[in-house]
């Protein structure tokens, strides 16, 4: 029964491929989402009841332990929300059945490969699944079929493939260093950690960090991330940001534990902190002049991944803070991206300078936009406040005050940069910028102008820019409202079972 979490999408893909009907596509996505959620929860309950260290699936290759259950639950919850949103998102667009089917198949495969990454207990196997995520999501990024989408997809596939090839070099170097341990299962590696030659382990960590760091979006190797997130359809951006980055991070985390067991963690910590700080710095620099709100959110993802990397490196309380941050970031960022999808539907532009008065145009979207900002900025009811505060506390406890100061300053700059744009977009009057007069059909002759619009924009009648708002179904608000409410609850008082999950995950990482 539980193995079906990996078999279901493959069968569903086959069926969808041969039938090609939009209704069935939507149904399959939602069915898999619910199924995924049910299975994850049942795995969680089973784990609690049996109190065993790991529940095995498919022999030794996949299992659930106290670390990856957190990641699995996040994936399930986010995917459930996105699947519902997705149905409403594609309601008013005239996509062909074929394109919609391929899109759904790609999403199913994408989720399948992420689930595989999270559950796998073997370093090489998780490598294979991470590569599979790249291939599955390439079509999703290219989905809009504009020049920009093509460029983003090319960069994504190419940069990530090279990154992942480097990660494979890391795996080979590790297997040179392991000597007589002829296994790449994490548990075998942990047990025999003392036998690994430190030189090869250090070398391999560098390659692994750069390789999987490319997928995770850490700074010097983040180049694909803003492009891909801004050009993909909004549900896909939400999935990329809230789940894909996490699953790459899980592998780094497992490898980091190996470094701790061999007492090389000082080396790993230096690398993680420098990449994390660089991520924060790059976000702080770029977020100011950005004129594309989806790119802005993508940079914010880079920032948050940097915070998580720093949290792991600080250690102790920092690891707990990083896990909490991971959970909260996934909830808030996915709803942020989905709301960005609403805005894109209403205004049909991605430029910040051409949008104002979201609140007047569409109240719920505007308030969601502001609520998401409050969440991502870490203003008190947000759980990110809690995690960032704990992280600062951990830094000060460990006498890393310069780090804490730089961290706080960079965060403040980023919040200012994002807040400026969000407030500008939310308030004020609706202005009609350029090009499209109200009531006129959008037939853009000029190729350049056409490129500035999203693909959806070209298809839909343009009245919405001026007056009556596009009809938005409840499905385009509900997932965000649920996510935001959940994160609000997290921020005010973390329910004990969630606290336990986070705590166990943090304990699984640190060896002391």
């Amino acid at each position: 029964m539980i193995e079906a979490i990996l078999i279901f999408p493959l069968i569903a893909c086959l069926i969808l491929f041969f039938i090609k009907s939009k209704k069935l596509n939507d149904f399959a996505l939602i069915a898999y989402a619910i199924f995924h959620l049910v299975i994850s929860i049942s795995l969680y309950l089973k784990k609690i009841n049996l109190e065993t260290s790991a529940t095995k699936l498919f022999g030794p290759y996949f299992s659930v332990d106290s670390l990856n259950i957190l990641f699995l639950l996040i994936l399930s919850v986010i995917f459930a929300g996105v699947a519902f949103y997705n149905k409403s998102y594609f309601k008013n667009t005239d996509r062909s059945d074929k394109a919609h089917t391929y899109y759904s198949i790609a999403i199913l495969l994408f989720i399948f490969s992420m689930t595989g990454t999270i559950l796998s207990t073997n370093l090489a196997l998780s490598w294979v699944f991470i590569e599979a995520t790249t291939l599955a999501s390439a079509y999703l990024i290219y989905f809009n079929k504009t020049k920009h989408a093509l460029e983003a997809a090319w960069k994504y596939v190419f940069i990530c493939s090279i990154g992942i090839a480097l990660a494979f070099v890391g795996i080979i170097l590790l297997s040179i260093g392991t000597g007589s341990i002829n296994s790449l299962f994490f548990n075998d590696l942990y047990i025999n950690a003392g036998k690994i030659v430190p030189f090869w382990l250090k070398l391999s960590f560098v390659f692994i960090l750069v390789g999987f760091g490319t997928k995770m979006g850490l700074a010097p190797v983040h180049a694909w991330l803003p492009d891909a997130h801004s050009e993909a359809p909004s549900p896909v951006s939400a999935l990329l940001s809230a789940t894909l980055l996490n699953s790459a991070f899980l592998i780094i985390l497992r490898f980091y534990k190996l470094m701790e067991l061999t007492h090389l963690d000082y080396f790993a910590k230096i690398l993680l902190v420098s990449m994390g700080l660089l991520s924060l710095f790059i976000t702080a620099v770029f977020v100011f002049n950005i004129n594309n709100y989806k790119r802005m959110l993508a940079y914010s993802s880079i920032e948050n991944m940097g915070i998580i990397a720093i949290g792991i490196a600080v250690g102790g309380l920092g690891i707990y803070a990083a896990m909490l941050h991971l959970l909260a970031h996934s909830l808030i960022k996915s709803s942020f991206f989905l709301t960005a999808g609403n805005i894109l539907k209403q205004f049909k532009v991605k430029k910040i300078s051409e949008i104002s008065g979201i609140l007047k145009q569409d109240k719920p979207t505007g308030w969601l936009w502001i609520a998401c900002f409050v969440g991502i900025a870490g203003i008190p009811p947000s759980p990110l406040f809690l995690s960032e505060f704990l992280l600062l506390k951990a830094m000060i406890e460990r006498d890393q005050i310069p780090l804490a100061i730089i961290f706080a300053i960079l965060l403040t700059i980023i919040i200012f940069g994002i807040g400026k744009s969000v407030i500008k977009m939310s308030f004020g009057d609706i202005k009609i910028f350029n090009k499209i007069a109200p009531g006129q059909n959008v037939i853009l002759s000029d190729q350049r102008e056409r490129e500035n619009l999203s693909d959806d924009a070209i298809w839909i009648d343009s009245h919405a820019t001026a007056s009556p708002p596009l009809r938005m179904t409840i499905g385009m608000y509900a997932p965000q409202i649920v996510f935001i409410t959940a994160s609000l609850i997290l921020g005010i008082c973390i329910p004990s079972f969630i606290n336990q999950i986070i705590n166990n995950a943090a304990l699984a990482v640190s060896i002391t």
Partner: protein
Amino acid sequence: MVNMLIVLFGLTMLYMAATSRIKAHIKMLSIQGLILFLILFLDEDKTNLINLIFLSIETLLVKTILIPLFLTRILNKNEVFRDNEPHIPNFYSLVIASIMLFAGFMISNLHGQGFENVTALYFGVSISTILISLFLITTRKKILTHVIGYIMMENGIFLLSLSVAKEMPIIVSMGVLLDIFIAVFILGFLVNKINTAFDELNICELCNLKDCDCND
């Protein structure tokens, strides 16, 4: 014999760095695949038959025949035959590639603790192959050359995995094969799309996505 083949493998990288004709690049890829197959055939112990058969299929069929054929088809379809004006002239990139290869040979002279699990010459040449292909990717301008650079890098990684005294589990090599295969096909597909969407297959065309457009 095997050592000579490995040196030959290193020399193909130098030829790659020196020439700008894409046809020659593809030919070299095919030769590299053949060399890898020969190395495998001469060097691998024949105890694990399934693994051997599998790896021979990977090198001989996929690396030597299928991928070069596919690339040639893309080449003929898109009519890009030369990688003109690389960022660094071919002569200098030849010099730099030679230095990298030399460094690889120097590495293979290292004998220290921890090197007992690895064949030194394989290790040195494969590391320099990976470095040279990354270098070529950054200096060349045509998109097709980038794909070729990526496959060369994969060849280098394959040689590196041969250098490990014990073999990788079969599931890993299967995964690797599948990944390379699909990645190359996706990249090839994108190359075709880029050719129809943009006028030229130049990497300079792909610079529209920026963080701040200053002219608005």
